[in-house]
């Protein structure tokens, strides 16, 4: 990382994003480190900013609350952020895990889930891409999910939205291939965060948020096009994607 680094985190109160920020703050050697923390709950963001400034006294944070759903609002938020300085890293992290059954019964819920997990993150990415392409620098990291790799009955609403993120990132990567702007698509497996708290009682095995964040931070610094976190999910998802339909359809997943 360079002497002065500006890191923008969209959905900065996400546990995964917060742990990425902690690791960035902990990396030695920045002359100045500036975070832009975007979320919807000022108190939460303040607490995170306070924590980061203990971890790294050279770190400052700008806190922004914004509307994550309307396209015009997203465009305006991103324009404001970029006007304050070109980001070195943008991490787009917000999301929510809806109840699939409820989405099937209530289309409004399904629409909201698609909106916040799919449309909203890609619009943020699109907005940053334009600015960053113009200055020809920086990394856009966007959190998708292993759930986006193949639709399955237990969470295809969420999975479809994450699939949208995957395809979008792929397109952006194609568009920016000749440039210095990197697009990193992150696909976490099940991770121990507030989002998955309810899965724990079923004995789900969840990766620690620290280890997932470490994999993401490494992937972002390398500019890897696709980062599975933990890395083993690359193999697991490759197998799942290639299972013949007659086998897959018999699986209760």
């Amino acid at each position: 990382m360079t002497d002065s680094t500006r890191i923008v985190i969209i959905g900065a109160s996400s546990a995964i994003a917060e742990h990425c920020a902690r690791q960035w703050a902990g990396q030695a050697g920045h002359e100045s480190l500036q975070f832009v923390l975007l979320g919807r709950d000022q108190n939460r963001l303040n607490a995170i900013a306070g924590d980061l400034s203990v971890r790294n006294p050279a770190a400052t944070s700008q806190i922004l609350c914004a509307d994550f759903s309307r396209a015009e609002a997203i465009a305006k938020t991103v324009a404001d952020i970029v006007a304050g300085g070109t980001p070195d890293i943008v991490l787009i992290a917000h999301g929510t895990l809806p109840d699939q059954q409820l989405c099937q019964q209530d289309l409004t819920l399904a629409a909201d889930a698609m909106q916040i997990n799919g449309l909203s993150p890609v619009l943020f990415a699109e907005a940053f891409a334009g600015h960053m392409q113009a200055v020809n620098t920086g990394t856009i990291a966007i959190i998708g999910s292993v759930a986006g790799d193949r639709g399955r009955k237990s969470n295809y609403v969420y999975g479809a939205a994450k699939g949208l993120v995957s395809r979008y990132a792929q397109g952006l990567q194609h568009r920016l291939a000749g440039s210095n702007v990197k697009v990193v698509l992150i696909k976490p497996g099940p991770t121990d965060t507030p989002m998955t708290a309810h899965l724990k009682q079923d004995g789900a095995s969840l990766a620690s948020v620290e280890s997932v964040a470490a994999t993401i931070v490494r992937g972002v610094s390398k500019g890897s096009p696709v980062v599975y976190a933990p890395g083993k999910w690359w193999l697991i998802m490759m197998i799942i994607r290639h299972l013949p339909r007659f086998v897959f359809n018999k699986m209760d997943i």
Partner: protein
Amino acid sequence: MFMKIASWGRLAEHPHEVVPLADHRTLVQSIQHGLPGISYGMGRSYGDVCLNPAGTLWQTRRMNRFISFDQGTGILSCEAGVTLKEIQDCLVPRGWMLPVTPGTQLITVGGAIANDVHGKNHHVMGTFGEHVTSFRIARTDGSTLDCNRDHHADLFKATIGGLGLTGVISTAQIRLRRIDSPWLLTDTVPFTSLDDFFSLADRSETDWEHTVSWIDCLTGPQTRGIFLRANHTSEAELTEKQLTAPGTRTPSALNMPVTPPLSLVNKLSLRPFNAAYYHMNARKAGISAAHYQSFFYPLDKIQHWNRMYGRRGFFQYQCVVPRKTARPAIADMLAAIAAAGDGSFLAVLKTFAERPAAGLLSFPLAGATLALDFPNKGARTERLFARLDDIVTQAGGRLYAAKDARMPAQMFAEGYASGLQEFSAFRDPGISSAMSRRLLGS
């Protein structure tokens, strides 16, 4: 969310209604339902102090944010679910360390306060609670109180060592100490009798900040052991040779990947282990350098080492006996253990100094503390403990709640008589643990 939860001794794994506490601001709302509940930090306590089978467990680990750090005074403010390791990983490189840490740094600030934990430097720094300047506590009646030595001083004192029973600590302020480097200068001294141990301990108190000893508990009255003493040092004071000696750096992480059906700690393994450990260390006698992590927290490198005792889990028995009776009482206990043929890898003997206690129920007393691990062998282990209890009670000593899963209520009442009556007024009626029901009746 119902989940099976055990503590470090893995004696039982009961379902609990687990409620993760997200952050200190919203904590007080989260603890007014499903009562009674108990706080759970890292579950590094060995017994039932942090358990509440079939009831509510407030998991504090997500409250893990720093709030501020004053580089001038060394005062850290943080949420109670921050671990001592997170604090030291962040601040040791900046020249600050926690003045008191136990034999593991994988515990939370809340847990360190609630058990008023001690380290190897009790005669210099006392207990963890002595370095806590203030904290905020939430109670199940919806109140939130800021406590320090002037303000709500009585609740402050009841909460330090208060076994989690006075409320849920949300944030705390702790005064750190300056260090010149992460290094310690250590001196390893083999000894071959209890008298040697006590005279070494006495002689070391003035010149050495950290003292502890490992003993071979299978040799009966002819106790042999290794006395370890250390001081903080600067890198400049260490020679190149000391810094690069094998074993000086922290070893890489190990793991106990599965729980064997039976304890790996048994008669066959114990005797050769203890003999080998003694001779290996006796050979290292003398001065060397150690990194603070390998000196203070050697077991943190072995993930899940507690699984080595098998599916039935294990007990730790830790007592303190007053100075006057310490020598004969420790000898009697070692004789009883040797006679029972049970023993432990980790027999730790150390002295505590005379200091005013930070909390009403703080464990340390001026005297000697002995800590031993025993695989759970049911009635047989219980018989040995009953014998040890007699010796401790007669000597005017007591057991450490952080390690306990089985002491009789009477023994607790006698051992902690001095603070117990005052303590009961500060209990939060919405809080109860398996231990509090066992020892305090509610």
